[in-house]
């Protein structure tokens, strides 16, 4: 059964140096507050996994938490590049970043295999692209019935997956609605999981399009209102599109990024961080 903890406790207990860590949320419900808590706790040597490393991973990479990134699309959506990600890949700043690069279809299927207890997944993908030349987690497999050649990718089984959801009840059952992305698969594929939620409520009123993760499939739940900002939480708040633009000016230079880190991450009090 999921335990209800503070964000600091959840990250402290579940995320260790050197871990494989997935933060998921496809545009919607990106666990930004949890990402910043990992930075505050100065985790190092993480292998970060995420289909769309956007601002949340630009921050973790710029802060030097990661040694490797497994991903399929790294950009600031609607704005442009992730400057911290580019600085790490092109210049090794602040630490070198190894990359393992897939397509969305490949990453999604890697999580599906992980959630399914299978060692690999099969898809029609990558054929003719240059990705298999640089990514050794893409292989070929032959259909035992038709002889067709398909792509195989290994399961992703993160040490810990972190997602943000709208609500949990006091027993730790988690409720998500709107775009649900690959979050269920990320949680089920992981050895441990942390779900930050907008609120913990007495009863989960059913919502059309909802997905419920039973308490016993989750390790910890932390109440973190506004924990997805600047992304959005359907039913709670909208995407802060201006912040995505604003991030471009922060992330562009090492100086401005380090100022941001100090001011907005390291010098913030606990109560500012948790929003309570």
């Amino acid at each position, binding site marked *: 059964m999921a335990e209800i903890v503070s964000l600091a406790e959840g990250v402290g207990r579940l995320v260790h140096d050197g871990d494989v860590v997935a933060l998921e949320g496809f545009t919607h419900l990106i666990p930004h507050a949890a990402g910043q808590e990992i930075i505050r706790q100065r985790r190092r040597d993480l292998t970060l996994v995420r289909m769309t490393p956007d601002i949340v991973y630009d921050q973790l990479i710029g802060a030097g938490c990661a040694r490797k990134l497994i991903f399929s699309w790294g950009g600031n*959506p609607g704005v442009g590049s992730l400057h911290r990600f580019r600085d790490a890949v092109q210049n090794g700043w602040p630490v070198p970043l190894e990359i393992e690069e897939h*397509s969305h279809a490949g990453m*999604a299927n890697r999580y599906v295999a992980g959630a399914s207890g299978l060692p690999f997944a099969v898809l029609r993908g990558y*054929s003719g692209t240059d*990705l298999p030349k640089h990514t050794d987690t893409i292989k070929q497999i032959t259909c035992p019935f038709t002889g067709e050649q398909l792509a195989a990718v290994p399961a992703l089984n993160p040490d810990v997956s972190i997602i943000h959801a709208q609500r949990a009840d006091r027993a730790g059952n988690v409720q998500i609605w709107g775009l649900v992305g690959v979050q269920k698969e990320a949680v089920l594929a992981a050895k441990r999981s942390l779900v930050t939620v907008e609120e913990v409520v007495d009863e989960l009123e059913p919502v059309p399009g909802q997905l419920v993760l039973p308490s016993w499939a989750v390790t910890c739940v932390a109440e973190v209102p506004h924990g997805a900002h600047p992304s959005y939480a359907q039913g709670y708040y909208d995407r802060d*599109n201006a912040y995505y633009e604003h991030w471009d000016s922060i992330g562009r230079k090492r100086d401005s990024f380090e100022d941001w880190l100090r001011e907005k991450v390291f010098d913030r009090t606990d109560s500012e961080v948790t929003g309570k």
Partner: protein
Amino acid sequence: MTATTEAQQTYTSDEMMSIAAARALGDGQRCFVGIGLPSTAANLARRTHAPDLVLIYESGTLGSKPDRLPASIGDGILAETADAVISVPEVFNYWLQPGRIDVGFLGAAQLDKFGNINTTVIGDDYANPKVRLPGAGGAPEIAASCREVFVVVRQSKRSFVDRVDFVTSVGHGSGKGDRERLGLRGAGPTLVITDLGILRPDPETSELVLSQLHEGVEVEQVREATGWDLKVSPDLSRTAPPSEAELATLRALKEAGK
């Protein structure tokens, strides 16, 4: 760059590109929409000649009907107005991979003469790129599995190259017959819509040739914006300039999307 219609209406070459791209979509088609230029064009089509165009976004929406331009591929309005919201694995496995989508609408950082797309790295050395681009996203499988692919991209010598530095998404590979050899089921890029005109694959060689010029653009101008020796179709035609209705709708969409 601006041009002038018969009605003396002024419009930008980007507007012409979006409108030409929108016109390429047929009503009732299922269109897998990338963000940016493709999304603008697809939403414009839905509000003009193709009200029953089915918009599919990789964030997990089937049949979105946004009343403004979505700010991102996962804008809440896409889920709120969709016929069905599904998980990301389901988008790729149940809807894209089996070939249910008519048109994949893609952008490109680099495009080559066989319509191959690069959105990964600029430069020859993957490990030490000149420029690190965002990467593949959904594009490789969109390019593989949609019945056909339309690419919308601004044309320049820098982006239209003889051979892409990295094949992120396969167009026609190294020419005619390559898609079949690679087991790719869709027809690949059948249209490349730029701010200058429209390119189509030559039926014999699959090399992209200039088949349509936007109003006010000359062939030489397009050749100068192309990094290979661009051939011109014998059936070269002129794009009709934007109608007042098209322009008004496009501008209202963009205004509402701000």
